[in-house]
């Protein structure tokens, strides 16, 4: 009977989705391996075995990015875009377009569990998407316009600007973030009341129904519109900004804000990503291997990796962001001609210093930072 019960569980979401995806991934990569073995390589072309290895590498990387992003509570794009822009020579428009697809897919993958459990508030996501979608579309159009107008200088400026943003996010995370788990709403304005945006949900950790309130929905919309512009322009997921804006401006409980921002990023980036698709900035074969890894990693992260010590993940994430920020700023300054190319040793030294800081933070040897995490 037990085996039967387990079998039935495997055929129900989310395990059904993971089983299907795993089967397709295994069969596809086996097929790729068989096809590419012994295939002829044209002059100056890349061998099919190398391409297969590259695709599999992207798949593994996307799995790790997605799992870390879910555990850390940020979008996958926030990790992918800065890292790729900092440490690969790939054109920024291609990276930003792919970053948006990654952010969108990690949001979509987490939508099912969040809506089913009731923690995610679809009304809140739909309302916020009205601002985020418009902002994101404007941001994406702006990115394409800037890329057409500014050429190599624009690439440098974009890298430096993104380096600054990533550094700010890392410092924000280092402080633990200013968040309130259960905000107390003193006065609900007429507009928010008219919207009727809230809905009660069962909070497992408290074993009770939480019937929360919201306020300042108008300002919340302005905030999500501004966040959408940054997200669309730089190809980032924007969970790091949406969660605090919902939590601090609209006074939504932290858990609901996290879940609803995931739903919103999936929904909103469906608007934002199309300008990149129509401009040819999304190269199909380059993007394809990321999707399966994102899906499997996202669901695994949400259901299994939740047991991992979140503090350690947070420090590793901060380390990755600081190193990406260093790479972005230096690469931007080099391409603008302000500094000469740095020797490889400089990057290794920066990486070692950051890694030492991360290890010290994990074992508790660094001074504690403020915040209410």
């Amino acid at each position, binding site marked *: 009977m037990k085996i039967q019960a387990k079998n039935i569980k495997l055929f129900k979401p989310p395990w059904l*989705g993971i089983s299907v*995806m795993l089967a*397709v*991934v295994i069969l*596809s990569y086996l097929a*790729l391996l068989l*096809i590419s073995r012994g295939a002829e390589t*044209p002059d100056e072309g*890349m061998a099919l075995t190398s*391409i*297969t290895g*590259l695709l599999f590498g992207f798949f593994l990387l996307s799995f790790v990015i997605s799992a870390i992003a879910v555990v850390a509570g940020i979008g996958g794009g926030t990790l992918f875009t800065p890292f790729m822009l900092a440490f690969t*020579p790939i*054109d920024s*428009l*291609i990276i930003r377009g792919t970053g948006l*697809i990654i952010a*969108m*897919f990690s949001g979509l993958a987490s*939508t*099912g569990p*969040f*809506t*089913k459990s009731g923690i*995610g508030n*679809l009304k809140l996501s*739909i*309302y916020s998407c009205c601002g985020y*979608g418009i902002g994101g*579309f404007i941001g994406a*159009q702006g990115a*394409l316009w800037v*890329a057409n107008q500014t050429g190599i200088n624009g690439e440098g400026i974009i890298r430096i600007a993104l380096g600054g943003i990533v550094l700010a996010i890392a410092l924000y995370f280092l402080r633990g973030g200013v968040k309130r788990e259960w905000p107390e709403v003193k006065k609900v304005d007429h507009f928010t009341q008219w*919207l009727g945006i809230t809905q*009660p*949900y*069962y909070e497992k950790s408290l074993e009770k*129904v939480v019937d929360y309130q919201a306020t300042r929905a108008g300002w919340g919309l302005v905030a999500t519109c501004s966040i959408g512009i940054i997200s669309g322009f730089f190809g980032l997921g924007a969970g790091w900004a949406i969660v605090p804006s919902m939590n601090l401006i609209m006074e939504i409980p932290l858990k609901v804000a996290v879940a609803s921002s995931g739903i919103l990023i*999936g929904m909103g980036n*469906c*608007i934002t*990503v*199309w*300008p990149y*698709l*129509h*401009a*040819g*900035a*999304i*190269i*199909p*074969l*380059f993007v*394809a*291997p990321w*999707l*399966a890894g*994102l*899906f499997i990693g996202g669901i695994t992260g949400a259901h299994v990796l939740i047991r991992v010590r979140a503090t350690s993940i947070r420090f590793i994430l901060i380390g990755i962001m600081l190193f990406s920020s260093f790479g972005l700023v230096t690469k931007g300054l080099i391409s603008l001609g302000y500094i000469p190319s740095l020797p490889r040793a400089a990057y290794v030294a920066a990486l070692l210093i950051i890694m030492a800081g991360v290890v010290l933070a994990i074992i508790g040897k660094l001074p504690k930072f403020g915040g209410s995490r």
Partner: protein
Amino acid sequence: MDKPKIPLSQIVYGRFIYWLCITAAVICTIGPVVAIASPDNNFMNPHYLFSAIWEGKNPEMIWLQMGNGFPGGNFWLHNLSTGDGLIQFGLAIGCSSASVALMATAIAYFREKPRAYKWALLSLWIAVMIILSALGTYQT
């Protein structure tokens, strides 16, 4: 304590997104197999594509060098048998999933009691924004 009932609209949205997402990911996983099996039957020959990307060439240059330039975001409509056409089809499903799910959600909002007209209209509004974006309206 009784758990509050999850609104039908929310369940509908989650289900649609879940299955459309899986469909998109499956197609995008099979797509590279088709692309690698017949490298010449693609808009961009995989043998040369990744080195062009790694050289830092911009998208316009890459599409131009690999073929006759970018054929448009919806090129998959007439090229489903090619590897990159199939992948683009998968991407199109993923990138339009929210519009389909929101239309179904709007119907659920209309059927809920009491009827949630404003939420149905907001759902349809976002679905329309996604469709306009997918059709390439207001493209710079």
